[in-house]
């Protein structure tokens, strides 16, 4: 029997040379006359260990990492295929505290299974949710998802069950399920990891949503910056056969507009138009894609659904704190020593994530500021690191959890420059429909430039402008750009002097 060796095909692993390592392993195996099968799994999300090679041995699944091409000959000399001793040997990866301390629910199969194999997916518990959903009424499915307490993981945290109920209760000949995979926030990659590492989980979640609201057509809108995710989804759909019954899914490639992550701009884009934000009402749940009732959910929201069905609502609801139920796959990014994916129930503190998991800064200097929730999220100073990771606790300090992206900066960061960047990014990415966002962002860059040049009397003007953007913009692009700007100004005033 051939020996199974896992070499991740996840984009992050590829960026660190996984393809070259896979080739080197094949060559070395041939030289040693070993019969091996290489599986390109997703990533476990411990990126300082990538490329992380795992081997199925008599001792279990043994990991080695980070493996470079140069390490491969010595790994084979050390009998890697039997789990032999080597300086890169990590043993069973799941016993490493970084993984052992997590509670992987939505991401439980990512990095474990062969993402291209439906049978491997099923062997690891996949498919049970859909099977169950097929024996339930639409109302029962919606009720179960509502009871689980699942809230939209894209950032807005709207209760998923309530959104589904609105679509279910709206009568129409055609309804749609749209997956928002336009993961544009810097510091986020959990959507990408699911699409590359466990695509069937997302697909199953969409099919369940279809049964829940009476939709037979789904779209996955994936950013063009994620070609590997697009390929993984298409490959998975191509080999899904009749697993989904009459539910059809089409993958749509985005085209580099950040604002298309806003749900109505995304719908416009699928319809073949410029990604301009629509006025609400009507809600997409009532009049969405092509004017039809549409469920639009983030990747993680939909990928959480199969497990919620299979394990029951209570199982998910029992995790978390307050009104933030279940888990969130946090993403530790930026200047952080142990960057990666950390799925935990809500309720830890930011400090625990940054230090217990992240190990502090990569540069070795003190962490000074942390941006949580993407480019529209607030910058938190050290004094706020003890904030609990919970939607409401973050809202209470004028911050957001968003999609769970956490970007760390050390003490070399210039926060006035980061504030300027936030305005600049808004100016580049604004769809242009509303004035506060389109023009406010450009004026914001100019005002911050003047402040940085010494015109401190312009600080009240910047605050005024932020107020106008917050209350006058149509969507989060303009109304939340003030979060990073004002938090930088409030907590790091010295950088504006």
């Amino acid at each position, binding site marked *: 029997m051939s020996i199974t060796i896992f070499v991740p095909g996840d984009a992050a692993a590829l*960026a660190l040379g996984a393809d070259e390592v896979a080739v080197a392993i094949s060559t070395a195996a041939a030289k040693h006359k070993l019969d091996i099968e290489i599986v390109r799994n997703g990533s476990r999300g411990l990126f300082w260990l990538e490329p992380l090679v795992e081997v199925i041995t008599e001792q279990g699944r043994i990991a080695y990492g980070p493996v470079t091409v140069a390490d491969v000959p010595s790994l084979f000399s050390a009998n890697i295929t039997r789990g032999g001793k080597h300086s890169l040997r990590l043993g069973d990866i799941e016993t490493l505290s970084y993984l052992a301390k997590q509670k992987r629910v939505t991401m439980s199969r990512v990095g474990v299974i062969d993402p291209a194999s439906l049978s491997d997916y099923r062997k690891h518990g996949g498919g049970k949710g859909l099977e169950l959903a097929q024996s339930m009424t639409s109302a029962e499915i919606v009720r179960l998802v509502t009871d689980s307490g699942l809230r939209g993981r894209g950032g807005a945290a709207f209760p998923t069950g309530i959104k589904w109920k609105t679509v279910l209760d709206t009568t129409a000949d055609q309804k749609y399920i749209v997956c928002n995979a336009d993961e544009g926030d810097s*510091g986020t*990659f959990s959507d990408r990891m699911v699409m590359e590492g466990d695509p069937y989980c997302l697909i199953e979640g969409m099919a369940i949503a279809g049964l829940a609201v009476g939709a037979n057509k789904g779209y996955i809108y994936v950013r063009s910056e994620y070609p590997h995710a697009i390929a993984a989804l298409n490959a998975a759909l191509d080999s899904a056969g009749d697993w989904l019954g009459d539910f059809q899914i089409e993958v749509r490639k985005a085209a580099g507009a950040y604002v298309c992550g806003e749900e109505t701009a995304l719908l416009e884009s699928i319809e073949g138009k410029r990604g301009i934000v629509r006025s609400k009402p009507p809600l997409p749940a009532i009049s969405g894609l092509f004017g039809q009732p549409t469920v639009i959910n983030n990747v993680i929201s939909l990928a959480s659904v199969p497990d919620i069905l299979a394990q029951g609502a209570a199982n998910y609801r029992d995790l978390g704190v307050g009104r933030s139920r279940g888990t969130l796959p946090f993403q530790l990014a930026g200047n952080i020593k142990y960057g990666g994916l950390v799925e935990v129930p809500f309720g830890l503190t930011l400090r625990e994530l940054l230090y217990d998991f992240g190990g502090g800064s990569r540069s070795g200097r003190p962490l000074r500021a942390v941006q949580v929730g993407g480019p529209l999220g607030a910058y938190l100073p050290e004094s706020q690191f003890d904030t609990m990771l919970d939607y409401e606790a973050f809202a209470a300090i004028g911050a957001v959890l968003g999609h769970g992206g956490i970007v760390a900066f050390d003490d070399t960061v210039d926060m006035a420059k980061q504030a300027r*960047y936030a305005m600049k990014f808004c100016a580049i990415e604004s769809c242009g429909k509303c004035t506060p966002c389109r023009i406010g962002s450009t004026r914001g860059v100019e005002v911050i430039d003047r402040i940085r040049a010494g015109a401190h009397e312009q600080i009240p003007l910047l605050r005024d402008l932020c107020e106008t953007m917050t209350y006058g913009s149509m969507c989060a692009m303009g109304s939340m750009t003030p979060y990073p700007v004002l938090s930088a100004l409030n907590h790091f005033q010295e950088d504006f002097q």
Partner: protein
Amino acid sequence: MLNTLNAIFAKHRHQPGALLPILHDIQHELGYVPDLAVPEIAKELNLSRAEVHGVLTYYHHFRQSPPGKHVVHVCCAEACQANGSEALANHAATRLLSGDIKMEPVYCLGLCSIGPAIQIDELKLHARVTPEKFDKLMQELEVRS
């Protein structure tokens, strides 16, 4: 070019909202979307030329002129900034001032724990890119082409 366009149109004829998929296919085939294609697309989809032009120019991904032989995307978003992407982008811009490798900024490649990240010609990714590593990669690229 017309044959290419017609083949692409035929593929998407029954797809609702086909404009973006058509533009992607044209750019994939030709490297960019030529001005001459715009009226043809408009005719195919029963849109005005202004509507097609509007969509083509709205999205950062679409190009209206031929790219260099290679395109290097340097991530300039916050997570890479925290790891020195600004210095890398400046270095890349100077390094690639002449020659047929073109640099474009990109706002997030989803490699936020291992920045600064770059992407060469869509599919090839590199992480923890220092200016020295960047020069080495560009040399390899120049040798190959």
